[in-house]
């Protein structure tokens, strides 16, 4: 059932590489293969830049047939396959292996079809996220998931990571916005999951492949759901004297029956960085900024705006700005979107953490993070999706100072364990990749980890698809020690444990 690795390459490394190349040239003579060190360098890492590795070789298929040929050749020789989209993932899911092939999907970037009446678009995996909304816009439709890298990240990567974005609370994650996914499994078979109808026969395999981080198959075609563009969007920015009062306002907005399109929060460290960087002119002493966006039909958005505004006022917002023009709206978003650039002015490097917690725990968790920061002697700033409890603490460090990177990673690990302790999760939208393997052992027990391996082996019996990512081996969990904290099984999970 559980094995550390099932890969059994049929030859020693240099001979294996030659044999694989020979096979690829026979089965797919037109395939673009990168073999030289210079050409492979750009593929050494994704956006989890603290780790890098040179792949045995990289291939850039242009068609599903070529993908199949590569997967079959790799399966025959027992060579691992790592799939890469745009390389924007920040948990290391697309970092290659020295003993493996890197499958780069950037050449498969055709928009196959847009069907405005059905509100669907069929795209190849290399199509950029934002491109889908661009081709849908003439029909007054858009593709809702909007990860912050949406300008460059690819749909194939979005499926692999089940990407989120700032509008998830209302519009859902990638998994809620897919109709069908076509993928090649480790046997080289084509799997058609989902359909253009509203459901499909059999088990929901599309749910499994979405967010599987390249472990279950190579996505070759995606049918996404398109959403009507809202008629009206209203954006507000409110300053609060404490994180707690801002968090209470968030709970009250949702309790009142409003589902904002976005609800983002920034703490004092971030506000001050933004102020230095962009001079937003916020009241001195603001401890939290809340950016809220409501949208929909004209009347619906208007009504929601009035409700949100009243709640913000009632909860002690010291200043509320409502954008009255598209320019002002962009201005309010600048604080949120430019936050990461502003943070870079604090220290040269920062490490972004990604956990989710029940929203009611926000103030307590943020307090604990501040305490932990003091313990580690590091600075931490918080920008996060307050509406859905997805927190992104940023830990600042200087990579030139020995030990700082490691310390920031340890600190990050402690924050994630804290998320699990309060009934949350170690990753809301960035994925596990290589980064959070250790914390997986905190969130899940051995039989669950074993079940994940069983799921993988149903699609990939010999473990050739992105092995070693997303799910730790039981052996590694044992080595890391019994740190398991059962989410929600702590006594009285309804009481904040601080």
């Amino acid at each position: 059932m559980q094995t550390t690795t099932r890969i059994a390459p049929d030859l020693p490394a240099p001979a294996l590489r030659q044999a694989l190349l020979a096979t690829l040239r026979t089965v797919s003579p037109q395939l673009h293969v990168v073999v030289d060190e210079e050409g492979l360098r750009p593929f050494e890492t994704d956006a989890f830049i603290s780790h890098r590795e040179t792949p045995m070789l990289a291939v850039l298929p242009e068609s599903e047939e070529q993908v199949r040929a590569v997967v079959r050749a790799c399966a025959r020789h027992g060579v691992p396959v790592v799939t890469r989209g745009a390389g924007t993932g920040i948990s290391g899911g697309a970092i290659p292996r020295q003993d493996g092939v890197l499958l780069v999907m950037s050449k498969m970037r055709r928009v196959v079809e847009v069907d405005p009446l059905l509100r669907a678009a069929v795209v190849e995996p290399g199509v950029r996220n934002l491109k889908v909304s661009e081709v849908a816009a003439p029909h007054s439709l858009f593709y809702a998931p909007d990860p912050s890298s949406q300008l460059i990240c690819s749909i194939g990567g979005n499926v692999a990571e089940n990407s989120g974005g700032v509008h998830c609370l209302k519009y859902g994650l990638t998994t809620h916005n897919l109709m069908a996914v076509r993928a090649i499994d480790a046997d080289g078979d084509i799997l058609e999951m989902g359909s253009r109808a509203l459901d499909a026969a059999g088990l929901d395999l599309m749910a499994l492949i979405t967010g599987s981080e390249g472990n279950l198959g190579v996505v070759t075609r995606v049918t996404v759901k398109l959403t009507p563009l809202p008629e009206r969007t209203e954006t507000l920015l409110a300053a609060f004297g404490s994180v707690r009062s801002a968090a209470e306002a968030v709970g009250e907005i949702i309790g009142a029956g409003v589902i904002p399109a976005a609800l983002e929060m920034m703490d004092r460290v971030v506000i001050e960085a933004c102020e230095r960087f962009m001079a937003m002119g916020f009241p001195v002493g603001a401890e939290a900024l809340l950016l809220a966006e409501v949208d929909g039909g004209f009347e619906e958005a208007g009504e929601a705006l009035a409700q949100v505004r009243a709640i913000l006022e009632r909860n002690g917002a010291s200043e509320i700005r409502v954008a009255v023009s598209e320019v002002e709206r962009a201005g309010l978003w600048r604080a949120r979107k430019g936050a990461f650039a502003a943070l870079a002015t604090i220290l040269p490097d920062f490490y972004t953490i990604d956990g989710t917690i029940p929203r009611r725990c926000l103030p307590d968790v943020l307090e604990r993070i501040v305490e932990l920061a003091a313990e580690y002697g590091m600075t931490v700033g918080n920008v996060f999706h307050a509406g859905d409890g997805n927190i992104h603490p940023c830990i600042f460090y200087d990579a030139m100072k020995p030990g700082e990177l490691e310390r920031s990673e340890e600190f990050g690990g402690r924050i994630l364990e804290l998320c699990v302790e309060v009934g949350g999760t170690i990753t809301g939208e960035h994925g596990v990749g290589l980064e959070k393997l250790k914390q997986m052992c905190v969130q899940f027990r051995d039989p669950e980890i074993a079940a994940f391996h069983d799921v993988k082996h149903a699609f990939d019996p010999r473990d050739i698809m992105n092995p070693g990512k997303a799910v730790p081996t039981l052996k590694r969990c044992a080595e890391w020690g019994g740190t398991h904290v059962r989410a929600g099984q702590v006594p009285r999970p309804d009481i904040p444990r601080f």
Partner: protein
Amino acid sequence: MADDFIPGLCARVADAAARKAPLAIQGGGSKAFYGGTPEGEPVEVAGYSGIVVYEPKELVLTVRAGTRLETVEAALDAERQMLPFEPPHFAAGATIGGTVACGLSGPRRPYTGAVRDFVLGTRIVNGKGEDLSFGGRVIKNVAGYDVSRLMAGALGTLGIVTEVSFKVLPRPPSELTLAFEYSEAAATQAANRWAGQPLPLSGTAWEQGVLRVRLSGAASAVSAARGKMGGAEVPDAASWWRDLRDHRLPFFVADRPLWRVSVPQTAEAIALPHSQLIEWGGGLRWVSGEVDALSIRSTAERLGGHATLFRGGNRSVDVFQPLQPALLKIHRRLKDAFDPAGILNPRRMYDF
């Protein structure tokens, strides 16, 4: 009983696995007609009931599988919230576990989402008698494969669902139903055109030349949409939508076979000798009467969908659309992984 239910269930399943004795998982029995005929020793889950955690401000509800759907809906209603997928009850006693296992959604499905879209986490007992938890109680969670969503619609073939966490939504304060005299083609066209605009649609159904459209949202939004769309207002329509959801309309004649044909919403009309009731903006076509299984399945497949013998009829043939060989291979492997002895609801879905 709640405290020992799961250990007891684990022991029961482990024992059945050792004996290779099939188990028929039972909730309220309201959907026993659905899927392959239940076989094996009955395992009652209905006794394991109760809401574990409900935090209206978190939009999250965790509930034991045996809890009655009506109990859950009443608790949500008290907070002006709802299960957004509008699950059918079909009979009194329907449970949350059965709702998730059958994966059936009601009229609201095209406009807010399906059961699987609102499942955040599940606790299951697999076919080895292991108590496993997947997903969680938070809205955004990508740790591990999404096994909890996989349980929605798996008909208990991979595990006995014991607890479920859902994302819930506010119940729209205002609701209105409009009726239009449209042909089938015109109704499908109109429903899809409206769905491409920011209108507060929450249900569409066409039958015998009449398209009914339900709008739900802020009062101002509903009345503005009514102004844009025209049509005639249908008074007291709530019970009609409930009867549609639960198959109590006269269309659903008890002693006739009922086919459920799921196709792309904009698919052409399917010519059949029997009358059809069309929901989901054209995506769901109910056919009441004997039809040739092979021919309805090939039509559904040609249109990009699938056909299910939903209720009655000759259930010795496949109830569900047969799978492509590559998908069937994965299904078998998953079944072997979760239930190696093949004891959980055998043949309720496919031939395993």
